[in-house]
């Protein structure tokens, strides 16, 4: 199964670029990578989902766990996602109001304060 996680620093942020399919087989790798980053002191994280071909509720669960850990240490998590199919996942579960969704990595690493759901990546009124 195609799945990759790559981490790169961009300014004060750690950008975690995810590619491929995120499900119960691959999500543990993403969880470990993100948890290791938080444990190493990287508390400002961007999860870039633009190259994700498929994600199900297991992937959403990992995102929730990462958000919990980052929030617990006073950090920030921003999620880059513009794919309609993935945005539907956030909307159907109400998590579009929990995550700070951004339209690009550039937008995500900008210092503008995000508010979950207020700065929608798709700009649509769903």
């Amino acid at each position, binding site marked *: 199964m195609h799945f990759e996680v790559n981490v790169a620093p961009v300014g004060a942020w750690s950008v975690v670029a995810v590619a491929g399919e995120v499900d*119960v087989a691959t999500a543990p790798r993403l969880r470990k990578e993100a948890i290791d980053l938080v444990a190493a002191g990287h508390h400002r994280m961007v999860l870039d989902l633009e190259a994700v071909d498929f994600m199900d509720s297991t992937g959403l669960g*990992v995102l*929730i766990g990462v958000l*919990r850990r980052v929030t617990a240490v006073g950090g920030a998590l921003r999620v880059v996602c513009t794919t309609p199919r993935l945005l539907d996942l956030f909307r*159907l*579960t109400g998590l579009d109001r929990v995550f700070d969704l951004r339209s690009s990595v550039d937008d995500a690493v900008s210092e503008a304060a995000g508010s979950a759901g207020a700065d929608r990546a798709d700009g649509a009124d769903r």
Partner: protein
Amino acid sequence: MGQVVELEIPARADFLEVARMVVTTAASIEPTFPDERINDLRLVVSEACTNAIEAHASAGDTDKRILLRCDLAEDRVEVEVEDQGGGFDLADLGELPAVTDPARLEHERGLGITLMRSVADETEFRVSPGGTAVRLVVYSTRPR
């Protein structure tokens, strides 16, 4: 009844992609099925099979198998996923905290059934001590 495709997979996470691929490829044979509905089918099959895989893992029965039965008709695909994982009580799942409640972040699981019910046009869960059968129907056109 339309064409029927049956698939039996080991109850292991690394076979989940195979299940998604077989069901969606079979559904793609019907030219009236739009990509949007194929994607819906991919998601609900993944959710049902994930639950089955995790049920087997919880029961320590990963050597058992999961049966998928896919009934293809012109206007809909009906998928049944059967496991031998010991079953569960739907009533025990309870309600997740509201998304505005900070306690919501304590719950990483429990979204799969929500998504199946939201995305599939028909869902049915039959739970027995011997396992769970999930029936999912996705129509080629989303009912209004």
